[in-house]
């Protein structure tokens, strides 16, 4: 593993076994021998249709699922005191209407990861900083609000604040804008870009919208039926894609009629 890589995924296969009560068992191949590396400080886009295994990949990196075969390795990162440790990974989920607890205030939601990580000794100032950096200003107004009083865009900002509060090295954003209006979605994308530039957080941006991916990503991987069918820098994907699925995605983003896909 060279110095630039943060996560390397080698030959990962994930099979889901389905055991029906009457029908016997069947299995679904969600990821088929995937290899991918995420570089430090980049925004890597993963594009694919529903059921192509994008979210499974995210869950494997997060450690929520174990791969059936293959390995996922993390590079060591060094902090200011030059101690080496494994990178911290956080996640932003697709649906901001469901991913925030209705029973907790915004302050509690954002403080929870700190609480889990540092115990009672966490610094409350960090929560305020996180909310400030996602643009929920004035912070005092939002700290004691409940999620149901916020709009979709504001909720997604809370989800992002929750992800950045523990200062992770990498954030996995699983379709963060697909539930939002396009005018609000652009603001969220700009926020992700800003986080990437200012704090150097690595992003894994999962989406089915190729236009959004080309807007913020450095590199793009296209997934189809559990395989990565194309991988390359953004420019290369747009101008000289080789797979027909990428082509159909580009065509639908340009507003052309898709004939045979």
């Amino acid at each position: 593993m060279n110095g630039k890589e943060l996560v390397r995924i080698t030959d990962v296969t994930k099979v889901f076994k389905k055991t029906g009560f009457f029908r016997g068992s069947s299995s679904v191949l969600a990821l088929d021998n995937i290899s991918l590396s995420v570089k430090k400080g980049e925004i890597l886009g993963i594009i694919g249709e529903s059921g192509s295994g994008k979210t499974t990949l995210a869950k494997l990196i997060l450690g929520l699922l174990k791969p059936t075969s293959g390995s996922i390795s993390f590079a060591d990162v060094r902090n200011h005191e030059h101690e080496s440790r494994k990178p911290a990974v956080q996640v932003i989920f697709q649906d901001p209407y469901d991913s925030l607890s209705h029973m907790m205030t915004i302050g509690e939601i954002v403080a929870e990861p700190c609480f889990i990580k540092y115990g009672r000794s966490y610094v409350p100032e960090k929560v305020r900083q996180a909310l400030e950096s996602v643009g929920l200003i004035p912070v005092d107004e939002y700290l004691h609000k409940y999620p149901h009083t916020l709009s979709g865009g504001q909720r997604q900002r809370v989800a992002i604040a929750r992800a950045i509060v523990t200062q992770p090295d990498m954030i996995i954003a699983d379709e963060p804008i697909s539930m939002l209006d396009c005018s609000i979605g652009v603001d969220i994308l700009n926020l992700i870009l800003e986080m990437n530039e200012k704090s150097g957080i690595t992003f894994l941006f999962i989406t089915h919208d190729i236009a959004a991916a080309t807007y913020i990503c450095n590199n793009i991987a296209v997934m189809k039926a559990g395989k990565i069918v194309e991988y390359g820098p953004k420019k290369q994907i747009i101008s000289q894609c080789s797979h027909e699925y990428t082509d159909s995605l580009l065509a639908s983003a340009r507003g052309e009629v898709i004939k045979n896909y």
Partner: protein
Amino acid sequence: MQVLKIQGLTVDFSTKAGIHHVLKNVDLSIGKGEIVGLIGESGSGKSTLAMTVLDLNSRNRIVSGSIRFMDEELMTLDKEKIRKIRGSHIGFVPQSSMNALNPLMRVKRQFVETIKSHTDMPLQQMVELIARTLAMVSIDPARGDSFFYEFSGGQRQRLMIALSMLLSPELIIADEPTTALDATVQSKIIDLLKNMVLQKHTSMLVISHDLHTISRVCDRIYIMYAGKIVETGTREEILTRPRHPYTQKLLSSRLSLMAEPVKVNGIPGNPPSVLKEYFGCSFLERCDRASLVCKTEKPPECIGNVKVACHFEGES
């Protein structure tokens, strides 16, 4: 001839928190064979408009204005008569089509149920009609015996479209038909909607927040903001010469395919609260062009020949 003509429709809902002013003096008309788009952000009242036409939201509702469907005033009809119109004359594709059908009934039975409640068709004819409609949306008629959850997202959406078309209604209202679908599936659904309208000679009202996707099929477009129509025009007018600042911002917040990094700006600020009454323009706080007159005077209403609800219409 106008299939649907809405004039001066105002809808308020009374709740514990106060009166929500959801629709304010909305004028909208749909001609025969026309596809009309209604675009607005979340909470602007698009779905309320559809629900009010279908009379599905009568709880706590205070409504005034007129809704004429095929020269019949819907506002004065009783519930039973509206129920007859709904489904047979006005088809509806609801917003959350992913879970709009009963998961415990086979798809075919739900189609039969719709036909039975409106006509006395013999069984053989019903089966033929269902098979024909399913084939039209390119779903294998043999799959009518499956359950709804056995279909994929795009297929479910197509089933809902087939169900709304079943009795060849004069008007179809499709509420966010492409939201929550993949990009490639979206364009297929859009093409399907267009083909269905051509084949069945119906009219259609498409509701969406995605101006760019929906505009491909629309003949005319209404832009809605905070319960008001702020701009209306043909597709070319809206896409090439938007005149209201909100429409201009909506269009410029689109992400296009680009290899070079270009900064795209969204629309800053939040949509206004429905609880407050605004004396001036409701877009005031998010508008670049806002000036004193916007604060004190209401902009012109989008009625009759007025196409843009902005004080500065015609200037710049």
